[in-house]
């Protein structure tokens, strides 16, 4: 009886928990949305043969686990070891070159001697603090393919935890075709490369970004207006125009769901946008459409008029994209100013 019951329960388990994991299916569920079908590259970096032949299995597996905090690539802690292995095997199938294996030694270089070398040879692309220059990370979803691969953030804790000294040294020696990183073979001595790696290990991630304390951890900015509904809406539009936003036609929150005569006309969304800013933002993160356009809702309820906007800093946090957080902190101030002006 016991055994039958157990067997039954076993059968009820989702297949992912007992069958051998299917690497292709896992890749398509978790990775292809960013890295594209067969790793051709999208918002995530390409994982083509040219790239894969320089990356060890250990690095890829750890990258899947650690992700890249603040650089879009999520961390997949919930995948089992067997699942990570299955994804790896599937990815490797795109390349007929074997996976490189690097010795697990800590290179004993001198970071002090490595620093000037970094400033001379690497800073231009990877930035003074190693956080990678230029905006965006991988290719954006819709940008021209020509300016695609951005320099890696060498100070990223996810990178630091995933890349071994020997692998980093190998990339310095050989360069990377995708992204145009030059080879330093013959230009730097082995000792110099070792010193460089030692310096890279001293790079630290930039401090976390916070919004206004007052609103931290709250889902929305919410303010009560001392004015009537119509007046509040007019004030809000004026304040938005004053802040250089373009305003879209107003929509009722229930519009499209309720009949025209039935729709609650005291619940509206004022949608606004700044197209120049939008261009900049979509370069930073093409997934922003999930939260655009900006919207402040005006709602009358029990005789009170309230203004509500999503807390843009808290929402930006969902994207794991540090650059976006920087913009969100600025936006937060602007939106709160506008809301305050409208309710003054």
């Amino acid at each position, binding site marked *: 009886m016991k055994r039958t019951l157990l067997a039954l329960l076993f059968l009820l388990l989702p297949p992912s928990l007992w069958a051998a994991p299917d690497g292709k299916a896992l890749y398509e569920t978790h990775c292809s949305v960013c890295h594209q079908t067969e790793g051709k590259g999208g918002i995530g970096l390409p994982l083509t043969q040219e790239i894969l032949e320089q990356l060890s299995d250990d690095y890829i597996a750890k990258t899947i686990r650690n992700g890249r905090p603040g650089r879009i690539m999520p961390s997949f802690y919930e995948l089992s070891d067997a699942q990570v292995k299955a994804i790896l095997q599937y990815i490797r199938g795109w390349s007929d070159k074997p996976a490189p294996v690097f010795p697990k030694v800590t290179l004993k270089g001198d970071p002090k001697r490595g620093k000037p070398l970094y400033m001379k040879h690497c800073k231009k692309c990877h930035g003074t603090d190693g956080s990678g220059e230029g905006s965006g990370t991988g290719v954006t979803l819709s940008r021209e393919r020509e300016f695609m691969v951005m320099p890696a953030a060498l100070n990223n804790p996810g990178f630091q935890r995933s890349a071994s000294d020997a692998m980093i040294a190998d990339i310095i020696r050989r360069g990377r075709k995708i992204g145009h990183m030059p080879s330093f073979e013959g230009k730097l001595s082995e000792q110099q490369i070792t010193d460089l790696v030692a310096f890279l290990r001293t790079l630290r991630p930039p401090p976390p970004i916070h919004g206004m304390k007052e609103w931290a951890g709250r*889902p929305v900015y919410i303010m009560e207006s001392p004015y009537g509904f119509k007046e509040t809406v007019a004030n809000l539009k004026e304040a938005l125009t004053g802040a250089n936003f373009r305003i879209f036609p107003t929509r009722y929150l229930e519009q499209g769901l309720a009949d025209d005569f039935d729709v609650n006309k005291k619940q509206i969304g004022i949608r606004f946008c700044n197209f120049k800013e939008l261009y900049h933002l979509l370069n930073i993160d093409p997934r922003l459409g999930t939260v655009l356009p900006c919207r402040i809702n005006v709602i009358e309820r029990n005789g009170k008029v309230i203004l509500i906007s999503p807390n843009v800093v808290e929402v930006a946090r969902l*994207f794991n994209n540090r650059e976006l957080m920087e913009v969100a902190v600025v936006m937060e101030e602007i939106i709160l100013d506008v809301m305050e002006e409208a309710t003054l």
Partner: protein
Amino acid sequence: MKQIILLLLLLMAAPLHAGQKLLMVRVNMKAQQTMDVLKETVREYGYEVAHVQRCDGGMAKFHYKSDFYRVLFFGKLAEVRGILKAYPELAPFLPLKIAVIAEKNQTVLAAMDPTALARLYGHHPVLDVQFARWHSDLQAILEEMRTFRKPE
């Protein structure tokens, strides 16, 4: 014995995609077609399409190759009404939306994971259930889209 059953039940309940903040899938279809199928799918799950927001109007001017970037808004009137009445502070996140972003012959769909809001709303017992429900609908809709094969 009881423990084994409990353990197994717990395992079964464990969300396999826990900890996601954006729900995203790649669809092997052009964007316009994807949008059409998405509207149908959303309706199959009992939602009404509220409207489609065009974001791609000015994009070409800004060197974007993407010709298609739209957001589909959808909801259930009774649900939206009930929630706004009891919890107006949820207004900014209603109706639900999915962004439809062209990537050559394929399309990327992205939505905010409603369960990511649970913490911000202080793990409110009623809202948590609502967020979980939306999460599972969105997840199921996106999964249907990901595996959709157009009839030849």
